[in-house]
């Protein structure tokens, strides 16, 4: 038996033409800037860990303080001031290793109303904030459950402690303010987990702080919003496919096999955020309307 000969089969694995593009996209997505940012976060994490050793409990103290004294929070979290009406700021920051199993990197945001001298919350922002807390807590619980299961399976199938090598799961909670224009506030909450690569969920909040309502696509585009979005998205898909043959969308370009999975219509639940032009940007998850290597797909709908 010559195992070396079967290498020919391995070597004959066909390299798809998309590989180049996939690699280049992945590299441009993970820019040096992002790597440096993550590096900085990790160093900060180490720094905090150092602090916990010398002044045990300090991290806990700051967390509690952030949660209980809003004025302290405003001072501590030097976050972008995005307007006079409200701020989105970190109310709970946890950076460090927990239970020797989780690399936790959480910046949990809350919406905080701001009047001239004080920080106060309305019923509406309280409701949004508790939704955020619930999303974060549920995500964290699910991540821990997944990792426990993975770890159990790892050892049951013959993995050793040495190979496990203290591997840890990353749990990352972060947010990004997309726009604020007067009373309109739009931001993204990102939850992600993984032990090598990450699996990511994005949640969007579009708030009208004057009427205390969440903004809908109908508010932005009028009664015909479904047709407006669908037509615009289909047009943009075709444009993108024409611009680059490597851009693929299920069910477009004569591909009947994936017809079922392809984009058909948006609904009231389709996620979107509002960009700085005040236009809605529809977001589709990875795999939702295109192969995974296309990543998240965003479509700006101009009014």
């Amino acid at each position, binding site marked *: 038996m010559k195992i070396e000969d079967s290498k020919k089969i391995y070597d004959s694995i066909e390299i798809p033409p998309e590989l180049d593009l996939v690699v280049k996209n992945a590299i441009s997505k993970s820019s040096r800037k992002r*790597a440096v940012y993550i590096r900085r976060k990790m160093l900060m994490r180490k720094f905090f860990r150092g602090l916990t050793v010398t002044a045990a409990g300090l991290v806990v103290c700051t967390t509690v303080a952030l949660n209980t004294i809003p004025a302290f929070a405003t001072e501590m979290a030097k976050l972008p001031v995005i307007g006079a009406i409200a701020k989105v700021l970190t109310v709970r920051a946890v950076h460090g290793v927990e239970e020797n199993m989780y690399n936790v990197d959480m910046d949990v945001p809350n919406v905080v109303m701001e009047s001239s001298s004080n920080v106060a919350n309305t019923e509406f922002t309280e409701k949004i904030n508790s939704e955020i807390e619930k999303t974060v807590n549920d995500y964290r619980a699910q991540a821990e459950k997944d990792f426990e299961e993975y770890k159990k399976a790892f050892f049951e199938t013959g993995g050793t402690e040495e190979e496990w090598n203290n591997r840890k799961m990353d749990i990352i909670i972060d947010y990004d303010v997309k726009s604020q224009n007067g009373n309109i506030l739009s931001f993204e909450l990102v939850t992600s987990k993984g032990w090598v690569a990450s699996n990511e969920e994005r949640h969007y909040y579009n708030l009208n702080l004057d009427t205390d309502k969440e903004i809908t696509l109908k508010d932005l585009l009028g009664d015909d919003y479904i047709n407006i979005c669908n037509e615009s998205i289909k047009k943009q898909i075709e444009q993108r496919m024409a611009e680059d043959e490597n851009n693929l969308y299920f069910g477009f370009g004569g591909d009947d096999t994936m017809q079922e999975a392809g984009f058909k219509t948006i609904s009231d639940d389709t996620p979107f955020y509002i960009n700085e032009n005040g236009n809605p940007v529809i977001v589709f998850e990875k795999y939702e309307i295109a192969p995974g290597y296309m990543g998240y797909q965003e479509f700006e709908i101009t009014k």
Partner: protein
Amino acid sequence: MEKDLYDLTVSCILEHQEKFYKLAYSYVRNKESALDIVQNSICTALEKCYTIKNPQAIKTWLYKIIINEALQHIKASKNEAPTDETLPEQSYNEPYFDKNMEVYEAVQNLSEPVRTVIILHYYEDLTIKQIAETTNTNPNTVKTRLYSGLSKLENKLSKEAFA
């Protein structure tokens, strides 16, 4: 001037992207999944490139990420039976192709972690030391797995020959 870890990682990825794809493909045997694995692995690698302690070992470190990612992918979709969709058909004309295919299949059917060791050693030409780095084990464990894999393959293939 010393090259930055980010640049080193990028050039290593560009240089070996086809190897990474093949390795990923050999686990999932499906083009889309293999591309996903390569993409996710690159993102992970670049995000963590500043944690690399030994710039000499970037390639084995990248292999490690690909393998972890591939195993994670398999776990997530374990109900779907893998099928090779793009192995070139013209190769069937080559003499001994069937025999080679049989060995290749037998390798694919080995259980983890033995299969990884065999693939890295025989298909990716990694040394025992490099495999140890890739799989977080010591060289003796790698040797044990290599021998155990070889004897399993011998058993299986000779049994089939007599069947």
